[in-house]
């Protein structure tokens, strides 16, 4: 089992975190998110992202607004809510902590 396979569950769990991270920078729509993720370990597809986004919205982490696009129908642009910002900060802190722990362990 390669590292890539072993960590698939981990990546999946972290997807929400990285999506929060992306949306925190600016208002984005789904294709932007997919673009930023493509080429990274978190590359994903609409089929995964839409259900995830709707769940995050249900949890009150983000919201969207309709915006006209220059070509074609309007798009949904996502932005973080206050709760989402909070959650992102918490997760970042927690991630730092885990990272520190992982590096620290076994170094005696």
């Amino acid at each position, binding site marked *: 089992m390669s590292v*890539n396979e072993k960590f*698939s*569950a981990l*990546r*999946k769990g972290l*997807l929400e975190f990285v999506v929060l991270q992306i949306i925190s920078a600016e208002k984005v729509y*789904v*294709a932007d998110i997919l673009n930023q993720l*493509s080429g990274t370990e978190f*590359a*994903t*597809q*609409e*089929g*995964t992202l*839409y*259900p*995830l986004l*709707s*769940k995050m*919205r*249900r949890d009150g982490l983000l919201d969207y*607004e*309709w*915006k*006209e696009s220059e*070509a*074609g*129908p*309007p*798009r*949904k642009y996502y932005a973080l809510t206050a709760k989402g910002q909070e959650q992102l900060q918490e997760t970042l802190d927690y991630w730092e902590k885990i990272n520190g722990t992982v590096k620290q362990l076994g170094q005696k």
Partner: protein
Amino acid sequence: MNKVITINLGGNAYQLEEGGYDALRAYLETATTRLQANPDREEIISDIELAIGEKFRALLGSNKTVVVGKEVSAVLAEMGTIEADSGEATRAGAVSASAAGGTGASSTGGAATDRPPGSSPKPKRFYRIREGDMIAGVCNGLAVYLNIDPTFVRLAFVFLAMVWGTGVIVYIVMAIVVPEATSPEEKAAASGNPSTAQEFIRRAKEGYYEAMKGFPDRQARREWKRRFKREMRAHADQWRFNWHGWGPINTPVHPGMGFALPFLSLLQGMAKILGICALISLLATGAVFGKALPANVPVWVAALLLLIAYGIIAGPLKIARRACYYGMGRPGWSWPFVFLMDAIVWAAVVAILLSLALVYFPELSDAVKSIPSLIHQAAGDIRSWWK
């Protein structure tokens, strides 16, 4: 040549090859079942439809208006399988499978094939269809149900009618028993598939109102409304056409068609009038245009044969005319022209018939001559009644 089906994704019309349409429908059906437990199911599906539409639009241009089957599967593979909500990971197998899909490595074009049991296409129902019927639409409905040309069904009925009139009895019974397809839903059920078209329209409308709420200014709202209406109309036209269309659908536009159309209309009109005259003379006098029937042929058999002969003559004319009609009528501007030409041709046919009738039936010409005095009299009556 492949059949093209027009669909509506998020308020925009797209034309797909039939195979691609089937794949897309299966994909969306799978998505809907996967998201069964998700409270935002409707919204996710409409998001996905919008995203698919956007990908389709990127493929199309002014010289390419149809998304072919291969492109549809490519787009669906790009979309990836729809995952059930990660929060309610009850089925471990499904989650691990979709986790692999999340890396983008697994092929997901199979979405079309792994249709879950129980989501098979809606069963067809047998309805009488009055559009393009000859008597009561029984054969027409049966043809749509069996997915064959109505002419063959009619021939089969005529053949049955020769056997001690079985076909006639069966026809009459069916005409009474089988319901007529009147609402769009029933029509959809008759041919099996386009019920999803209805579903698409419903969703498109929902998306329309949803989007409406999001626009800040009136200008944008009006623009959106106009576009939505235009596309819905195009969609409806296409749908109606698919429904009627036994003729060739993707006929290339040819300028000669505009000139052929009136003549085809004329021929068709003459065939119709001849047919009606022949039938009337057969029923009234037992002879067609002076030719008496052989003694051992009953009148009803002759009438049926006459109808069949009419069908054989008029059928190809009808198809050719429809091809011209839609072939040149598509761009939009020529529609009024087409109607005008048709109207002129019909007026000419009626005028010729009337003049012939006036020459050959003196009673009729007398009757026509008495019309002015009759009007005078009626006017006088009304005037005296009024006073």
